[in-house]
């Protein structure tokens, strides 16, 4: 089975005055796994539901392999979906759940059961065919839901935050499994998530949405290293905002001059966006920086460093955290790379460096 190419063209959808989708354009290539990432209310789920047929866009079109399916009812579309909440039919056992779509299509029972068994083996749960949904763990339920969505060999797979109800360990193992299955089946997959780690680790490309519009779509490495806009930069990963000053086409920040990536704002006073791992610290009793807090994370440690009247976050290797204990005086240097700048966020100094709340997920 081969994945279909899915195109979203100028999708618009209003919910009582607020625009959930505001002219979304996105093309998903055949066989690709694309993650729709964004804060809640950015329209990512609405976009997915437009593809599934549960939502009608006010304007725009959904095309699958060049065919307009915008007005096709949900039950006539060729897309399997896995839902955020547990969606298995409580009255049917696992085998009948997986075979539900085949039953709708009046496939004979023996063929149906054979196909269900095949899929249960595919998801690594061959022995649970006779059990009922309430006897399964959350992770197993979502696996079965995945098998059920794949039973009809759809050409598009839609995943609506399928892992968000699961605990951390299961989430990681299941996302690897979804990716493995998706690659081996070559099925076009749209994955909605608010978890940047999930998006970055699974997707071929990540589309960041904001207020119903596409902010940037790129492969995970590009998205992280060269975010197109300050919003993407701060939403994906952690970002420091450090005041700087434009000098020609470069920016002076913390005593260094770095090349600017992307557009220059009109004003000379800017905020420079710097990743914590691009902040280098060396212990130096003469320096004016001081480590305030250190949070150890195993392989790395994140340090909050006071520099005059601003604070920056720095990621250092975990084994350096002893050397850089709170109270240590440090010299701060930035990695020499092009940086993104945005218009200064305020006249007052950003005394507390922004710590995006989606820092740890």
């Amino acid at each position, binding site marked *: 089975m081969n994945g279909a190419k899915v195109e979203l063209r100028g999708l618009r959808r209003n919910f009582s005055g607020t625009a959930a989708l505001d002219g979304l354009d996105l093309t998903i290539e055949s066989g690709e796994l694309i993650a729709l990432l964004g804060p809640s209310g950015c329209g990512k789920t609405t976009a997915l539901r437009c593809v599934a047929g*549960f939502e009608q866009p006010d304007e725009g079109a959904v095309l699958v392999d060049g065919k307009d399916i915008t007005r096709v009812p*949900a*039950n006539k579309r060729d*897309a*399997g979906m896995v839902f955020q909440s547990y*969606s298995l039919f409580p009255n049917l056992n696992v085998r009948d759940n997986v075979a539900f779509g085949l039953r709708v299509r009046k496939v004979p029972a023996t063929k149906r059961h054979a196909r269900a068994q095949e899929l249960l083996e595919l998801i690594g749960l061959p022995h649970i065919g006779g059990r009922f949904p309430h006897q399964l763990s959350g992770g197993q339920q979502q696996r079965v*839901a995945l098998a059920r969505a794949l039973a*009809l060999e759809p050409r598009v797979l839609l995943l609506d935050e399928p892992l968000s109800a699961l605990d951390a360990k299961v989430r990681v193992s299941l996302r690897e499994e979804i990716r493995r299955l998706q690659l081996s089946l070559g099925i076009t997959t749209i994955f909605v998530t608010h978890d940047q780690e999930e998006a970055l680790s699974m997707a071929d490309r990540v589309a960041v949405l904001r207020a119903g519009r596409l902010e940037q779509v790129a492969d995970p490495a590009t998205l992280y290293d060269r975010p197109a806009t300050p919003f993407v930069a701060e939403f994906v990963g952690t970002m420091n905002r450090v005041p700087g000053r434009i000098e020609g086409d470069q920016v002076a920040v913390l005593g260094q001059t770095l090349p600017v990536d992307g557009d220059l704002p009109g004003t000379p006073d800017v905020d420079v966006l710097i990743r914590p791992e691009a902040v280098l610290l060396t212990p130096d009793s003469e320096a004016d920086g001081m480590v305030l807090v250190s949070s150890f994370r195993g392989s790395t440690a994140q340090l909050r460093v006071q520099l005059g009247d601003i604070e920056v976050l720095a990621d250092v290797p975990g084994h350096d955290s002893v050397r850089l204990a709170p109270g240590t005086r440090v010299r701060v240097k930035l990695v020499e790379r092009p940086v993104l700048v945005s218009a200064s966020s305020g006249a007052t100094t950003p005394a507390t460096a922004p710590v995006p709340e989606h820092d740890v997920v």
Partner: protein
Amino acid sequence: MAALTPEGPVAPLTPPAVASGPVGGAGRPRRIRVWRGAILAIAAIYFLVPLIASFTFTVKAPEQDFSLDAYGQIFSAEGFGRSLLLSVGLGVATIAVVLLLTLPAMLAVRLSIPKLKPVLEILCTLPLVVPPITFVAGITTVLRLGPDYLASTPFYQTIFAIQDENFPIVLVLAYVILALPFVYRSLDAGLGAIDVRTLVEAARNLGASWPHLIFRVIVPNLRSSLASASFLTLALVLGEFTIASLLNFQTFPVWIYTISGSQAQVSVAVSVFSLLITWLLLLVLSSAGARQRSGS
């Protein structure tokens, strides 16, 4: 009927909250058990005394101490079979109409216009606060005035076309309205227990048409609440007296009342008998609900 609270009759169908664990002789559980027994005894006295009194009255005979004669007479009494069949038939028809009316309406409101939910709830609960006598007075007025104003409308012509002396449609319509609060409550509880939207979308996504998903997904998962709604409706129809009597239809309760004037013992025997039938129905339905719960 007025004594039925919306929650009350549903209670027997929900599993009893058994809290007594295998606690070995601790003070508190024992005290609870004693209290539980006391309350059970009081409730039992309240219900059993009138029942036993009725039963002793029916088995008393002038010559002997014990005779089931009155029960034997039930079946030979004039009009017994006809009125019982009529009531059961009315009950079945009412159940069918009320479920066909409320289930799709409640699904539609839940899925597409949740804002209307309070309106639907009030509409469905309204019959509880309208006294039956007011209700029947209203029906009589409409029936009398109706032909003058509405005779030419398709609605009225349909009513005319399907009317049948032996099977009063008007009673079915009246009972549907009376049953609405109970049916609404049971179905609302059932729908609240399942994630209707997700189940519907999952089934649609797998290609199911609306009829298929209603009969294969929604109804099986609502079995116990559909059963309780049906039971309440049936109990209501089997016990309804005011409307049937005032509209001059010989339903089972009206028949009991009619013969009580001439044959007091038989009428009480019939009451005991109908209570037994009702209990049997309750047992059947609640065990069906329990079976479903253990099965899924």
